């Protein structure tokens, strides 16, 4: 009985669903507050993302006449459900191990592309020209950062698999167990190029400056989100809050899953996420301007791709 409830509970309450949502909203709130402090402002209250969600739930959803209504309203639902599923796939070292039946790293990779695809669909279904521009930019950015991510994951998997005397291992549980007994990949010079590539990947996946080109408010008026209002927009906010937890959790599992067992493990995980969010996202976005789409595209094809390919090559040869 308990075992059959394990996966649904993981998706809906802990560590996915409600817990991941609270965590994601807290990360977003911290991000906004620190960004304000770095700019010398006071900033919003910590719970501001939650207030925004409640507000959006009370507003009216307007659907444009020329929009394809089922797709327009279905897209945010699909994205949110995919991210809720993904939160159940990310392990918390020392505390939570996902059911192997649910899927492994490869499933997580596919689920991670869903938010970008959903934004593209939403932008084109809204019928707005800005949504269409957002669509093409989102696709360009996604094509640019997906390649490095796959290579990073492949080199981590290969390193783990070769270390165990086998072939590439795409199970996050095995990757974590290997690092806990052999030392984290964070301190392994062979993995540093992959680490750098991942550090470039996650701001782009979270869609923040300098890589927020698809949703740039000052150029394309938030692109795909332009026509959304009320609860439908709130679902997009939930999706991006969940995605923050998933991407940061994935980074921690791939490179630094050293944590004590039980409840302290959870605290360590949250602390690592906060550090990653504040250093990798907030400081980056207040200190840089937005790139042009071609700059971002070439940047990803040049540096992260080269670094992750180099990492894969070293791992395979070493």
């Amino acid at each position, binding site marked *: 009985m308990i075992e059959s409830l394990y996966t649904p509970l993981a998706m809906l309450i802990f560590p996915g669903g409600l817990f991941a949502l609270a965590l994601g909203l807290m990360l977003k709130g911290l991000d*906004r507050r620190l960004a304000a402090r770095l700019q010398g402002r006071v900033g919003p209250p910590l719970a*501001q993302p939650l*207030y925004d969600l*409640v*507000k959006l739930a009370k507003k*009216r959803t307007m659907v444009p006449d020329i929009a394809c209504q089922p797709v327009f309203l279905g897209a945010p639902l699909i994205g949110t459900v995919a991210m809720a599923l993904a939160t159940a796939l990310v392990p918390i070292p020392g505390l939570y191990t996902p059911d192997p039946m649910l899927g492994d790293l490869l499933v997580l990779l596919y689920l991670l592309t869903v938010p970008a695809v959903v934004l593209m669909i939403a932008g084109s279904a809204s019928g707005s020209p800005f949504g269409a521009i957002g669509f093409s930019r989102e696709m360009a950015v996604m094509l640019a950062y997906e390649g490095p991510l796959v290579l990073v994951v492949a080199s981590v998997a290969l390193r783990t698999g070769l270390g165990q005397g086998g072939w590439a291992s795409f199970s996050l549980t095995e990757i974590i167990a290997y690092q806990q007994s052999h030392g984290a990949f964070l301190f392994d010079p062979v993995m540093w190029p992959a680490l750098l590539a991942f550090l470039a990947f996650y701001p782009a996946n979270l869609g923040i400056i300098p890589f927020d080109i698809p949703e740039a408010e*000052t150029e394309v008026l938030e692109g795909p989100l332009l026509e959304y209002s009320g609860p439908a927009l709130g679902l997009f906010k939930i999706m991006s809050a969940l995605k923050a937890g998933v991407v940061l959790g994935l980074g921690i599992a791939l490179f630094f899953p050293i944590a004590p067992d039980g409840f302290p493990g959870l605290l360590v995980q949250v602390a690592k996420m906060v550090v990653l969010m504040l250093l990798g996202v907030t400081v980056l976005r207040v200190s840089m301007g937005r790139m042009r789409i071609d700059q971002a595209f070439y940047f990803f094809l040049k540096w992260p791709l080269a670094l992750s390919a180099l990492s894969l090559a070293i791992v395979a040869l070493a």
Partner: protein
Amino acid sequence: MTLKEMISAQTRRMAALSPWIYRINAGSCNGCDVECATTALIPRYDVERLGCQYCGSPRHADIVLITGPLTARVKDSVLRVYAEIPDPKVTVAVGVCPISGGIFRDGYAVLAPISKYIPVDINVPGCAPRPQAIIEGIAQAIEVWRERL
């Protein structure tokens, strides 16, 4: 008080803490727009501490700041953008132009006051108003908005 009423009161309280702002330039000279921008960008006048956020799309907006005397050319576009903002919404007229026309009041191309076309809730007079005045206007608009939720 039943549980339902308590939840509704709590959600209203929380929702009132998140007013998103949208700016409409109805033929303004850009002076008031610069002052509006300072309320969000300059460290001293931080409107984000009230939970406000300037948003790029009228569909995300709760509080509308209108600047400019409403020129004849821009009238249809302003009314159309205004209609795109989902209810409940609050309108703030920033600067003396939307209130009376200001120095443009007798111009042949100027349709001010803007309240002939759009229901205005709060007036923030000045040419251009100081950022403190704009923030006070936004704070009053939040009070109005809380009633409308």
